[in-house]
């Protein structure tokens, strides 16, 4: 700590703080335009000038000057005020005064400072800038005439997002912010630049002219897309969610969001939302009252074991646990599951057997505390972009060693010092087994683990996975495998991350076992910055597992349920929020099952491809309209509250299930809070939590681990035989099929495509945007081609989110699907 005097006040501040930080910490406000607490000090705007007595009253920037012992600082002498006024005058000389139509009005740092310093005239005259406004993309408007050159956008895009879309162009008075070769902005559209822009130079287009900033009510919430569990502030006016509001103090991610979180909110107030229950009459879905619909549904649910349910892991913990309770106690069926089983197999089968706990042993804040990261399968920046930011910051600011083991390259591969091992798709379990083998052979294993159960079996099984054998199968080299194994074992703190979910089927459970073995073998568990983090796909995937909404005690899993529908043994299927027609593997089989089932009930926000097949459709509501809790991928339990009233006659799934329980003769809890207290009483790790103790940032449900070695089964990768390996998964802009209803993501990434390497494309003379037919044993699909340098030869990538081009027409759900391409 250092002691200093600011404006005659004795203050103390941490040793590494700047004068600006020290003042802020002690409640002294220094005006600034170019500073953001997440970014490195820059000193561009000269608004934060202060006088330091020891420097003979020279004016120096507070944001770049370290606070030192005994400093005597003045922040508002007449000279300083004069200097700041000059800075503002010079900025306003070229800055257009179009505040009445600027969306930033009321939230603009320049406007506020001009007001604070009572600047009502300008001594200088000059012409305004004449830069062309960039309207080329649907999400971010760039009006460089309003820019004050603080450089925050350039820095955030580099330091945190690591995309580097923007730069300072030219120099001196001509300087402006733009993209390389002054092309239009075409980036990840995470909107980080918009969030930090102090003026109206960068604006969110979907929010343009929707509401003045001060007219918005701000509601804290939790993002409804992926399992990262980012905190959101929803900007609401007239009962509509109009935007997301940046709050630099929110959550572990300090308000950082990805394109989905920031721009994907439009599904909430979408025109396409279902507003009334629908009942199929004479082959057509017709509007009905809730009473009619619930009466019919309740009647059908009295079928005992002939009833099955599929629910989306986007439901709250309260809804999932109540749903399960209804199935067990009121319906009398054990057949319920979520996400075709793929979202939870890594947790419930993999981690449960290896760790004795169906949860990840590491948390997101561990990432920046680690020394070495091993990121498996596709780049996490694409599946969980905000976790990608954490990795970026760890690598760039803390020198964390980054290793990537994937079937394709991505943004993380470009980080400084990133070591990318591109393997043949489907061989990841084998490669991790080889890493384990290499750790043992190099005598780097933790000696204390030899006594753990399963050690001997693992050693025996690993004899088939020598680095030499696996190098040949996986397309890697022995040296690379040995080096990665040695680096991982040698690091004091090392962490493994891998994604799961519908796009990452195949051998999720074995992948979890394999990485668990590697972590156990090297003693990388139970310490800060160590462990394994399974990145779940949906916002409440971990919650669905914690609530036990997956088949147990002989219940059918999702794929068995669909088979039983086809076979006629399941007669009633209740689907809450899932869209199997688009997202489950093997489209033809799914459709046949849903056609065959006697009675199909779908509760959803939208008329999905699955809802179109239903006999009764119930309008559900979104996360912004209901109360409950979500559990993030690292087991942070967070509380969401309604930000707006429910749209139309829609009801939360909690209300729907409660009404059904009443009709089935049971007594449901009165509120989600009552259900949550039941959850906390019965769920390990949730003990003692209440809505009040969760607060705004949520609380971690602790995970206790009992490590055991379990031999993972490595998939047999079929020989290529001139075919290409299909890799499916998430694309940056989407998550599940819900983001199809968010304008933002759809604007940027409107349709499916097949990404191919340039060499494979060249061989079939395919060029960008060519329509190509992708054929597998399951079927075929026509898609636009996208040539890419990140895809290795012999691999094609198709994102799975798009109903218009469902990848499940060709994708079988096994570890690798071989396909061929034709024009």
């Amino acid at each position: 700590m250092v002691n200093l005097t600011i404006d005659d006040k004795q203050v103390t501040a941490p040793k590494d703080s700047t004068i600006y930080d020290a003042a802020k910490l002690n409640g002294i406000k220094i005006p600034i335009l170019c500073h953001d607490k997440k970014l490195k000090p820059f000193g561009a705007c000269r608004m934060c000038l202060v006088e330091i007595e020891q420097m003979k009253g020279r004016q120096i920037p507070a944001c770049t000057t370290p606070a030192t012992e005994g400093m005597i600082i003045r922040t508002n002498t007449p000279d300083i005020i004069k200097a700041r006024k000059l800075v503002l005058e010079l900025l306003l000389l070229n800055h257009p005064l179009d505040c009445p139509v600027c969306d930033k009005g009321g939230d603009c740092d320049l406007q506020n400072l001009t007001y604070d310093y009572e600047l009502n005239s300008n001594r200088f005259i000059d012409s305004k800038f004449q830069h062309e406004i960039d309207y080329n993309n649907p999400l971010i408007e760039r009006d460089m005439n309003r820019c004050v050159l603080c450089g925050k956008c350039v820095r955030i895009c580099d330091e945190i997002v690591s995309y580097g879309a923007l730069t300072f162009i030219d120099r001196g008075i001509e300087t402006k912010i733009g993209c390389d070769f002054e092309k239009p902005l075409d980036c990840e559209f995470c909107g980080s630049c918009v969030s930090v822009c102090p003026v109206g130079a960068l604006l969110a287009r979907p929010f343009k002219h929707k509401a003045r900033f001060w007219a918005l009510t701000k509601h804290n919430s939790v993002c409804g897309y992926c399992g990262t569990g980012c905190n959101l502030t929803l900007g609401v006016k007239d009962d509509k969610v109009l935007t997301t509001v940046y709050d630099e103090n929110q959550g572990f991610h300090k308000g950082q969001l990805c394109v989905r979180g920031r721009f994907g909110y439009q599904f909430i107030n979408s025109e396409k939302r279902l507003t009334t229950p629908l009942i199929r009459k004479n082959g057509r879905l017709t509007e009905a009252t809730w009473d009619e619909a619930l009466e019919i549904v309740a009647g059908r649910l009295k079928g005992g074991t002939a009833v099955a349910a599929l629910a989306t892991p986007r439901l709250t913990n309260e809804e999932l646990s109540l749903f399960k309770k209804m199935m067990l106690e009121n319906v009398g069926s054990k057949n319920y599951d979520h996400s075709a089983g793929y979202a939870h197999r890594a947790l419930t089968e993999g981690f449960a057997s290896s760790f004795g706990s169906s949860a990840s042993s590491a948390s997101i804040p561990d990432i920046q505390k680690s020394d070495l990261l091993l990121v498996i399968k596709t780049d996490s920046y694409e599946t969980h972009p905000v976790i990608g930011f954490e990795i970026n910051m760890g690598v760039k600011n803390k020198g964390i060693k980054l290793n990537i083991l994937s079937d394709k390259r991505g943004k993380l591969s470009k980080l400084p010092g990133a070591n990318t091992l591109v393997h043949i798709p489907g061989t990841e379990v084998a490669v991790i087994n080889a890493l384990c083998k290499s750790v043992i052979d190099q005598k780097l294993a933790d000696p204390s683990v030899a006594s753990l159960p399963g050690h001997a079996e693992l050693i025996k099984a690993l004899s088939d996975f020598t680095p030499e054998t696996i190098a040949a199968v996986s397309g890697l080299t022995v040296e690379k495998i040995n080096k990665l194994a040695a680096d991982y074992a040698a690091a004091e703190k090392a962490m493994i991350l891998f994604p799961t979910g519908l796009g990452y089927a195949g051998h999720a459970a074995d992948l979890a076992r394999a990485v668990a073995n590697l972590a156990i073998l090297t003693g990388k568990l139970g310490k800060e910055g160590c462990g394994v983090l399974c990145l779940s796909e949906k916002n409440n995937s971990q919650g669905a597992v914690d609530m036990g909404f997956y088949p147990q005690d002989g219940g059918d899993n999702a794929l068995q349920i669909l088979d039983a529908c086809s076979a006629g043994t399941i007669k009633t299927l209740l689907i809450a929020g899932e869209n199997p027609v688009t997202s489950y593997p093997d489209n033809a089989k799914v459709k046949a099952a849903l056609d065959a089932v006697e009675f199909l009930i779908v509760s959803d926000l939208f008329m999905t491809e699955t809802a179109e097949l239903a006999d009764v459709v119930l309008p559900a509501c979104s996360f912004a309209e209901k109360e409950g809790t979500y559990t993030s991928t690292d087991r942070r339990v967070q509380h969401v509250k309604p930000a707006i009233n429910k749209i139309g006659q829609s009801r939360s799934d909690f209300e729907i299930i409660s009404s059904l329980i009443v009709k089935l003769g049971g007594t449901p809890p009165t509120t989600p809070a009552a259900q949550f207290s039941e959850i906390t009483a019965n769920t390990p790790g949730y003990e003692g939590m209440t809505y009040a103790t969760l607060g705004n940032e949520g609380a971690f449900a602790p995970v206790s681990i009992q490590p055991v070695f379990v031999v993972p089964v490595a998939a047999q990768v079929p020989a290529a035989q001139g075919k290409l390996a299909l890799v499916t998964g998430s694309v940056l802009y989407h998550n599940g099929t819900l983001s199809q209803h968010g304008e933002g993501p759809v604007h940027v990434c409107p349709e499916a495509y097949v990404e191919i390497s340039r060499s494979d494309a060249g061989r079939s003379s395919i060029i960008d945007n060519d329509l190509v037919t992708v054929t597998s044993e399951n079927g075929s699909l026509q898609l636009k081609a996208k040539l890419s340098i990140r895809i290795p030869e012999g691999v094609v990538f198709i994102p799975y989110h798009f109903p218009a081009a469902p990848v499940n027409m060709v994708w079988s759900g096994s570890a690798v699907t071989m396909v061929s391409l034709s024009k």
Partner: protein
Amino acid sequence: MSDVVAQQVKEQEPEVDLVKADQVIDKYIDLPGNLMPVLQGIQDAYGYIPRKVADYVAERLNVYPSQIYGVLTFYAQFHLKPRGRFIIRVCVGTACHVQGAQRIKETFFNLLHIKHTETSADLRFTFEEVACLGACGMAPLAMVNDDTYGKMTVQKVDEIVAKYSAIPLD
């Protein structure tokens, strides 16, 4: 950036000869802070910085393309458009101005039809007005590449243009 990616970028733009770029990059690849020497080397090799080469440098050095563009536009020494084989610089500083630099400049324009920073269609000449070449005693002054021509006259302009027009372009 890996050589795999670099290879694929090369295939993407077959019309630009990247061999020269590779030679420059290979020379400096292990030097920390190699962006400036690489870009200078690229400019020497190509006469200017072609956009595709800039993108290629970005891939191989693993630098954002935007960052490269920022550097290229910051320094006056980099050129983003093709430049002539012969760069004619006419001084219009104070000493040259009073000695009639304006006439010299106009004569060049009448012969070559290129103004300040412009390049002739055949890529033979680029014309630049400069503020001072540091040899005011020789005013009015002109330079063609590294050759200096002092005490310029209108006749000398004709001679210079004739001399450099006769040299075959490679």
